[in-house]
């Protein structure tokens, strides 16, 4: 009886698994744990480091519009600078990390894409 019950419940799980509700976010607790001030800098991040990160990010990812006009070396340099920013994400607060991780991926992804288009050319 026990074996039957286990077997049946495993089978049910196997069939119901694809029907589970989609879109469940990872952490959706509504706890109000934000720092008292509402500026972009979080308390968790060192303001100076955060500003340096922002400055470098703006400088690198602000060049996405020029990507098609850059040389392969310039694109490689920008990609290297993007990669150098990744470890610095850990110094930011949780929200900034989430936002900049995606923005950095988009930005680096574009440079890699454009570099790929220039693969066969000399420039």
């Amino acid at each position, binding site marked *: *009886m026990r074996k*039957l019950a286990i*077997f*049946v419940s495993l*089978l*049910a799980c196997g*069939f*119901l698994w*694809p*029907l589970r*509700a*989609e*879109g*469940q*976010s*990872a*952490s*959706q*607790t*509504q*706890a*109000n*744990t*934000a*720092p*008292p001030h*509402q*500026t*972009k800098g*979080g308390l968790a991040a060192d303001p100076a480091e955060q500003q340096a990160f922002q400055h470098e*990010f*703006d400088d690198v*990812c*602000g*060049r*996405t*519009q*020029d*990507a*098609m*006009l850059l040389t392969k070396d310039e694109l490689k340099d920008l990609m290297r600078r993007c990669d150098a920013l990744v470890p610095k994400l850990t110094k930011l*607060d*949780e*929200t*900034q990390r*989430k*936002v*900049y991780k*995606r*923005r950095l991926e*988009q*930005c680096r*992804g*574009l440079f*890699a*894409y*454009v570099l*790929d*288009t220039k*693969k066969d050319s000399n420039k």
Partner: protein
Amino acid sequence: MKRYFLLPLTLLLLLCLQALAQTATQPAGVKKRRPLPPEYGRVVIGQNVENAQLAPVVFEHWIHRSMFTCRVCHVDIGFAMKANGSGITPVDIQRGYYCGACHNGRMVRNDKTVFAGCGLRDTLADEQRCDRCHSYGKSVKSEYNFARFSANLPRERFGNGIDWEKAEVQGLIQSTDFVDGISMKRNSLAVQKDFALNPKVESMPDIIFSHKKHTVWNGCELCHPDIFFGVKKGTTKYTMVDIFEGRSCGACHSTVAFPTMDCQRCHSKPVQQ
């Protein structure tokens, strides 16, 4: 007794679950309901959230796209292109990210101060403000009326029923591409050439794809490489089925930009006889 019941019970369970799975998804061969013009582009965020204290958020694209380009939100602010894809929490909004980048009670747009999103010290008294976004399942009177908004805008088929591109060309809407404090200064983009895509079915006219029209609102990184990763034209093969299911062109042109149901908007080149 166990042995005799095991087989039929298993079959019963299998069949019932299969039937359940089939009824849960919409079968092929029936026409889907088409959203009304004010409903098109609506994104419901936060459904099926555990311990949710407020109703899910109903986000309307039409009011936002009349003021900002796609790039401001989907690149500069960093919103994902799928509901619940960004993982927004009230803390993020309080810190001035995502919705809170504009909905902070300080930004001024069209001579109005943009109302603040989730606040740190919100109480029950702020319910009316919360309901402006958290309105799913509730009857909340919206401040902006779609009929009034779209009355003078050039019309097009399906979707919102608005020709957004023409509206901007005619100056009826001003989509900002740069928001101070959020966007970074960029040079203007070198113009890309338009090109034609050949469909598989011979009787369908060619598609004229215009990079220029797309980059006016999107920039490069919104599509490349996430949505279109093929480097050389013609290397990525995608079909209309992919598009209708929300991949490649369908990432935007199934739920937000003009829907792919309007064949002639893309298949616009006359067929060479």
